[in-house]
């Protein structure tokens, strides 16, 4: 198992470096001059623009800039925002907790709703509860979050006054955005769990257990669910990535603080160091989450331990 983990760590590192190269290339190949975006195009003189480009290091060749960036990142220095000179790392560290809280709560909501409904709908296939669960799944997947988010604000904030419409202080401001995001995730999980439960239910070993006279509920939750959870768990790893990406929209809709907002603003302002830093940081988080998911397989399924 230790070997399996170290191999995964090694590949993760490769993925990280790859991400960094890719992000740096994409961001630097995109058309547009940050100096022109910072200065007012209608009033800046050519000398002012040239000076700023010099200061931003935009005149150096591509490979030199990349080399310098890479070395700095190794030392934990992601550079400074070109908009307000704030260190990128500090920005991320300040804003990540808010995004983390949002992602964590929405993942929890997604898993609880998703697994519950998925299992119920598989067990009660083609009954009303199955139809409801499948509807929920479909809604979750197909509703755009900016729309469902605004809908929740209209109902629970403007009409009922139960939760604040925006902000990022306290648990009450977390509820609506987390539900909006969690709902999307639950849609995927419902379908995944339902399908894999249905597959497992019909496998010979379940039939055998049944034939031996074990109680139905015991078979379902002890044996079938455990087997059905493996693909669902993989899904959770992927969904956490999706949810993190979803915070870009959700944090804007609910006007929350977080790295989703940061990157949205940074892209608008072509604030290259911030864009690079946040994407790179998100990649680290995503890789760590998936690593944890992989490791947790072994806890659920003993077979993975042997084959891994």
């Amino acid at each position, binding site marked *: 198992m230790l070997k399996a983990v170290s191999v995964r760590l090694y590949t993760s590192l490769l993925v990280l470096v790859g991400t960094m190269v890719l992000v740096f290339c994409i961001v630097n190949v995109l058309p547009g001059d940050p100096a022109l975006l910072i200065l007012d195009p*209608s009033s800046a003189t050519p000398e002012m623009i040239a000076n700023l480009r010099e200061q931003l290091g935009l005149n150096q060749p591509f490979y030199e800039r990349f080399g310098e960036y890479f070395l700095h990142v190794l030392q934990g220095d992601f550079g400074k925002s070109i908009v307000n000179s704030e260190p990128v790392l500090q920005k991320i560290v300040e804003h990540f907790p808010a995004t983390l809280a949002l992602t964590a709560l929405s993942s929890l909501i997604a898993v609880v709703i998703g697994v519950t409904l998925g299992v119920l709908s598989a067990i009660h296939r083609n009954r009303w509860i199955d139809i409801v669960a499948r509807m929920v799944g479909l809604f979750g997947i197909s509703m755009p979050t900016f729309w469902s988010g605004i809908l929740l604000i209209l109902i629970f904030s403007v009409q009922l006054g139960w939760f604040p419409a925006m902000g990022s202080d306290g648990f009450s401001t977390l509820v609506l955005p987390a539900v909006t995001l969690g709902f999307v995730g639950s849609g995927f999980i419902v379908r995944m769990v339902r399908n894999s439960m249905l597959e497992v239910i019909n496998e010979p070993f379940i039939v055998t257990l049944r034939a031996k006279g074990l109680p139905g509920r015991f078979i379902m939750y002890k044996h079938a669910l455990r087997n059905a959870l493996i693909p669902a768990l993989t899904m959770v790893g992927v969904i956490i990535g999706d949810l993190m990406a979803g915070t870009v929209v959700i944090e804007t809709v609910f006007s929350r603080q977080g790295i989703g907002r940061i990157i949205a*603003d940074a892209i608008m302002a072509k604030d290259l160091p911030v864009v690079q830093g946040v994407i790179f940081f998100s990649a680290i988080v995503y890789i760590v989450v998936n690593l944890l998911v992989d490791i947790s397989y072994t806890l659920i399924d003993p077979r993975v331990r042997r084959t891994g």
Partner: protein
Amino acid sequence: MSKAYSKPAVWMKMTSLALAVTLVLAGCSGGGGKSSANTGGNISGAAPASSAEQSSAPAQGGELSYALATSPDQLDPHRSGLAVAVRVIRTLYDTLVVQLPGGEIKPWLATEWSISEDGKSYTFKLRQDVKFQDGTPFNAEAVKYSFDRIIDPETKAANALALVRPYESSEVIDEFTVKLNLSEPSQAFLGNVSQALLSIVSPTAAKKDGDQFTKHPVGTGPFKFVKWDKNSEIVVEKNPDYNWAPETVSQQGAPNLDKIIFKIVPEEATRIGSVQSGQVLAAETVPPQNILSFKNDANSQLYQAGTVGLPYTLFINHSKAPWNELKARQALQLGINVEAIVKTLYLGTYEQAWSPLSPGIFGYDASLEGGVKPDIEKAKQLLDELGWKAGADGIREKDGKKLTLHYVDGSPNREKRNDIAAIVQQQLKPLGIQVDVEITKDVATVVYANNNYDLYGNSQVNSDPNALYSIYHTTAPGARQNLPNLSDPELDKLLEDGATEQDQTKREAIYKEAQQLIINKAVIIPIYVFPYTVAASKKVQGLAFDSLGYPIFNDVYIAE
């Protein structure tokens, strides 16, 4: 499936039931949510103030929460490039002079001033009782420092740099007298000095914090900076020592409010929703469809302030064929039905623009209003005369080239600007012009660097008609083009004269002539004048707006 599996625990049943109900509820409310938008509110428990209460003496204390539509970029006036930042900057800093809504300049931090014979030096006498919020005394040194800071390349000043031009240097005459020297006379200078971006900053704080001054701004304004949570909120509190308000506000001493919390809420529906739910007391930039409902809402009120400067305008690129020909531009002028656009999109809440300047600015020519009327037949005839004949697909052609128009806009549908593009596209189709719309934030590259546009929409807040200079005057060789890519000696002369003419009557006539010339030569198509709108709870009293349409909070109080 056997019976044993079909009995889930009760809570599970309830959960799924609750979910189903929520979904149905969500589905219903999507369409009919608006009808009862006034009910409920999780903070405002008190009844709205009656009109009788509004006339009573202003209440002291309290907090005003004010939702901004976008995040300020800087709280350093000299480095900011966004109008939204000015709403906050105005609370923290003061300027040497103030401009009244009619354009007249009055004292503020400066008590009086004189202009030299050649119009190139301004000598200001300063107030002697003013302190910065960090205790630094306000004096001639501070003024000199602030102006020199703007033109120092190290500062990376943005819009302030354009406003301060043609400022060259300052001399400290004595502790409270300062002389500002210009490289050439400018009639716009004093008006620009009244703008928030030319605020006086605390030299001690600005020197100490350098790049980071924007995060700990210090001025002499009615409010002191408390904190700025990026993308979330900016908090300012009452400056108890404040005693030097300009005559535009009635409260000469410290403001009534203890605190203003600027919340940053980019999403329109959320911003409006948080006023309706009582989570904030006021929110800026109300979408047209909500303006009417706020006007009729018993719990809230709507403020509308006309902004001054250049209205939202479509600039026609004169360096691109066939738009370098007057007839082609006139065809656009006659073919685009601006009235229909403004009525359709803004439901009668925005005014149509008729001139390159907006009403309310010095020199505005009201006689242009109602002048240009859409005339499709005339427009078609003009294009015929130029030799553009309808092709098989209805698009006009000449020498095997199709008549296309590259329409560029730089905002993600701010004030429905992208919808304007879509309507123009439809309106020009019957004329045989194919419009290709490009929406990009990177205007710097598309418009300025690559000159890849036929029509480009933009607007500008400004206090003086001299704003026309940077948009329409021929640019120096090697410098960046002006927006319509225009070089018209007649217009150049007018703009040069307007910048320096000291006789106000003559100056007004010059700018009227310039506006007529721009419209008669079909240089642009003016679209709408942007009103700054604020939806607020009835409890918010005393909100005022300066000559440019920015909110002033000195007199605001919360009526319970």
